[in-house]
């Protein structure tokens, strides 16, 4: 019954999505509002339908309906309720349904929130967002159905089909295979949904941009809606990337959080172009410039989202994150090609007609807009470098016949100077003015932050740091950080003439959310940057085999191996746990229990290495149990890392989230603008007729 409900609602959602595309297109072309309203209602209906479909699958997972292939492959009786629910995104078919549900949620949100304010764009927003949803639902219904079931033929063969083939009867396995062990981590509850939210969120800005191109409504209206939705998507992409890093740090046993893995990079690429857009869009809002470029950035971000989804799910890149090889590769490639051709075609059409021409031109070499343009150039250079590093194996195999791997040495060498340039720009841009800034004025404005950065480098030198690269990196990050703090301090100081400092700070952020939210984001990036610099350049590691009672020393810590123990968890995993004591000098600071979990029923990746770590703001003493003496258990091999400043990566991430939330929060002025736009829309009337 649940399965049938899931199938019917998914198919209905598919039909309605494509109906919305056609009705929206017809309504927009003929200017018949009735059709546009009908398209909107159809688009809105996809959300409850896909909610029912997703709930049907989740309930099947909880109930253990193992006749459903997806339920069998991602859950098992012994699994916790928690993991039975999160199995919705633990495999290809379920995560595609989840993707579709999120897409319908975002589309419904855009239709409800922007219906009045962006009325003229909405018919095409429906067309482009529903075409994307419709495509993913085609995959869900025809290629990778999460409701496909096992059937047994008369000769005992088990086949998989959505509907019962003639001459078969239901085949119901006793138990499921269970979730991939790597996904049995609390981080996996939040990491995939946030990343998907970021991916799916990028579809909405693209739909608005396409709507503007298709309708020719290329005033500032589309950019307002697009910026807000991009910020929402960017927030989730950032959160997904940071949580993914945390998951890798905890579960993958690399001793690190970022490995320049192709799937990590697939999520980073739209984040980079999205960040570039969030900066350059300000130039369009303020000066009416860079219209061609902003449109291009939105299109590139969307293409990178679909490319990332395609490469992760088709098996064209190998990664610990990627799904197994799947038949969805060819249709996804077709969609990617079609979406790219339509997007670029419309963009070129409007461009050559001169409808994306700049309203103003550059007034000075040194100005906020010139620094933002440089910022965009650096972001695009990083995008090109990361794209090439991720897809070079495919290109070289395709065109030269030799597959190469570009690993961390390549990425670190290429991106480090570019990130350094970004820190410089992050420091200079807030001090510059729109239009033109004189060199002397810029020099005066940056004097104190610059001196503070020089002071920081001097202190590091005094404390014995001699690595030139590290000194330079900390200096640049420090400069960007000091500029941000200096700007916040100046703002608070100006207000503090009239009110208490705490009140002044609160009101400053509350009344200038976009500016000071942006500063908080910059601070978050600086803190993350300091964490990355420290943990990359100064990471120490060692591997030793220790007998019980023996010790090893790394940095100022000494670790003593106590004993090994075995345990079995309720979900069937066999855990081998080492007990080690960590001393800072002579003081016992922690007892760690690094372990290896073995999943007897799991296929492929059946072992998980869980680190034990002693964390301080200064560093992480991070211990992995690598091997042990099976019979006597008298000795064990440990890999131990000392990761300086690594926790700043997570703290900086939180600051970045907070800043994004502040910047995205609507302020009173904006609410007033929205009311004004509504009035204007009402006064001018709808362009459509009923």
């Amino acid at each position, binding site marked *: 019954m649940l399965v049938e409900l899931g199938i019917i609602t998914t198919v209905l959602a598919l039909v309605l999505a494509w109906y919305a595309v056609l009705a929206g297109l017809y309504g927009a072309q003929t200017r018949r509002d009735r059709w546009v309203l009908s398209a909107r209602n159809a688009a809105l209906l996809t959300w409850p339908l896909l909610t029912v479909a997703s709930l049907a699958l989740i309930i099947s997972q909880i109930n253990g309906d193992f006749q459903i292939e997806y339920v069998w492959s991602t859950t098992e009786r012994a699994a916790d309720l928690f993991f039975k629910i999160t199995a919705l995104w633990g495999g290809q078919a379920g995560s595609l349904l989840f993707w579709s549900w999120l897409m319908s949620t975002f589309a419904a949100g855009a239709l409800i929130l922007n219906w009045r304010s962006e009325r003229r764009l909405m018919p095409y927003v429906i067309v482009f967002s529903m075409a994307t949803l419709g495509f993913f639902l085609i995959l869900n219904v025809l290629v990778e159905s999460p409701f496909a079931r096992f059937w047994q033929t008369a000769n005992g063969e088990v086949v998989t089909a959505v509907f019962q083939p003639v001459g078969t009867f239901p085949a119901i396995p006793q138990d499921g295979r269970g979730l991939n062990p790597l996904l049995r981590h609390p981080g996996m509850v939040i990491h995939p949904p946030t990343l998907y939210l970021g991916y799916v969120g990028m579809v909405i800005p693209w739909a608005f941009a396409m709507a503007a191109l298709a309708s020719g409504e290329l005033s500032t209206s589309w950019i307002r809606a697009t910026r807000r939705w991009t910020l929402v998507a960017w927030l989730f992409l950032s959160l997904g990337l940071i949580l993914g890093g945390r998951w890798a740090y905890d579960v993958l046993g690399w001793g690190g959080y970022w*490995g320049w893995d192709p799937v990590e990079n697939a999520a980073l690429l739209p984040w980079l172009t999205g960040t570039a857009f969030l900066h350059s869009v300000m130039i369009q809002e303020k000066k009416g410039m860079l219209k061609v470029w902003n449109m291009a950035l939105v299109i590139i971000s969307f293409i990178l989202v679909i490319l990332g989804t395609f490469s992760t799910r088709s098996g064209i890149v190998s990664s610990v994150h990627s799904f197994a090889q799947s038949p969805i590769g060819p249709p996804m490639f077709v969609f990617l090609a079609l979406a790219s051709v339509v997007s670029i075609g419309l963009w070129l059409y409007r461009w050559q007609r001169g409808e994306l021409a700049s309203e103003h031109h550059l007034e000075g070499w040194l100005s906020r807009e010139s620094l933002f*343009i440089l910022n965009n150039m650096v972001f695009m250079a990083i995008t090109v470098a990361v794209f090439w590093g991720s897809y070079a194996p495919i290109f070289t195999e395709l065109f030269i016949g030799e597959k190469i791997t570009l690993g961390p040495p390549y990425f670190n060498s290429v991106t480090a100077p570019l990130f350094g340039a970004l820190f410089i720009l992050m420091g200079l841009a807030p001090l510059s003015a729109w239009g033109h800034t004189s060199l002397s004025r810029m020099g005066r404005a940056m004097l104190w932050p610059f001196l503070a950065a020089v002071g920081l480098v001097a202190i590091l030198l005094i404390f014995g740091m001699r690595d030139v690269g590290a000194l330079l990196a900390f200096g640049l990050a420090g400069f960007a950080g000091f500029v941000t703090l200096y700007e916040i301090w100046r703002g608070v100081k*100006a207000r503090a003439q009239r009110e208490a400092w705490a009140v002044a700070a609160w009101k400053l952020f509350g009344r200038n959310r976009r500016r000071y939210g942006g500063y908080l984001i910059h601070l978050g990036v600086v803190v993350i940057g300091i964490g990355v610099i420290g943990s990359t350049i100064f990471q120490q590691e060692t591997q030793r085999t220790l007998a019980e009672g023996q010790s090893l020393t790394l940095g100022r810590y000494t670790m003593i191996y106590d004993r090994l123990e075995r345990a079995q968890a309720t979900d069937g995993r066999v855990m081998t746990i080492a007990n080690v004591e960590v001393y800072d000098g002579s003081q016992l600071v922690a007892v760690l229990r690094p372990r290896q979990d073995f999943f007897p029923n799991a296929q492929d990746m059946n072992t998980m290495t869980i680190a034990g770590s002693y964390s301080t703001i200064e560093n992480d003493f991070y211990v992995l149990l690598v091997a042990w003496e099976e019979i006597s258990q008298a000795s064990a091999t440990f890999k131990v890392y000392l990761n300086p400043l690594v926790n700043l990566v997570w703290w900086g991430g939180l600051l970045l989230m907070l800043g994004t939330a502040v910047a995205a929060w609507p302020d009173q002025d904006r609410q007033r603008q929205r009311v004004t736009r509504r009035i204007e829309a009402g006064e001018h009337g709808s362009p459509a007729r009923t």
Partner: protein
Amino acid sequence: MALGLVVMLLGASVVLAQGGGETTPPSVREVTADEVNAISSKLYCPVCENIPLDVCGTQACARWRAQVRTLLEGGASEDEVITYFVDQFGERVIGTPQNPTLNFLSWSVPIAGVVLGVVAVGVIFIRWRGQRGSAVRPAGESEEEATLDDDYRARLERELRSSK
């Protein structure tokens, strides 16, 4: 040099043929796990691509690490060990290609991207500066004020001046 490498590899293959795995063969010199990891971190196994050899948990990678150890114990340098694996399995096993053509290709794409970006930005700046209109400064407005078309910043500067 080449002869030495051949002898060393023959030695390694004998050890592996005896089911060497992680067991320690008769060694010429003591090799630590850290030395093995330092080289392994630069290698990628073709089976589990994109995971460096030093942190990969598969049996195949454990055998490769044992092979790195054996080669080091036989007296091979880091470069010789890496060259051995590239010869055996191709350029894909290292993070940056050894082959000069592939190496050039690896680095030239991002560098070309940066150069193109710089040229594009330069052209944009020059074109826009050439097209700029003659901005007339209102009477009585200082140069500093003229540069502050950011209303908020202008207000902030005024308030900070008044607080002095």
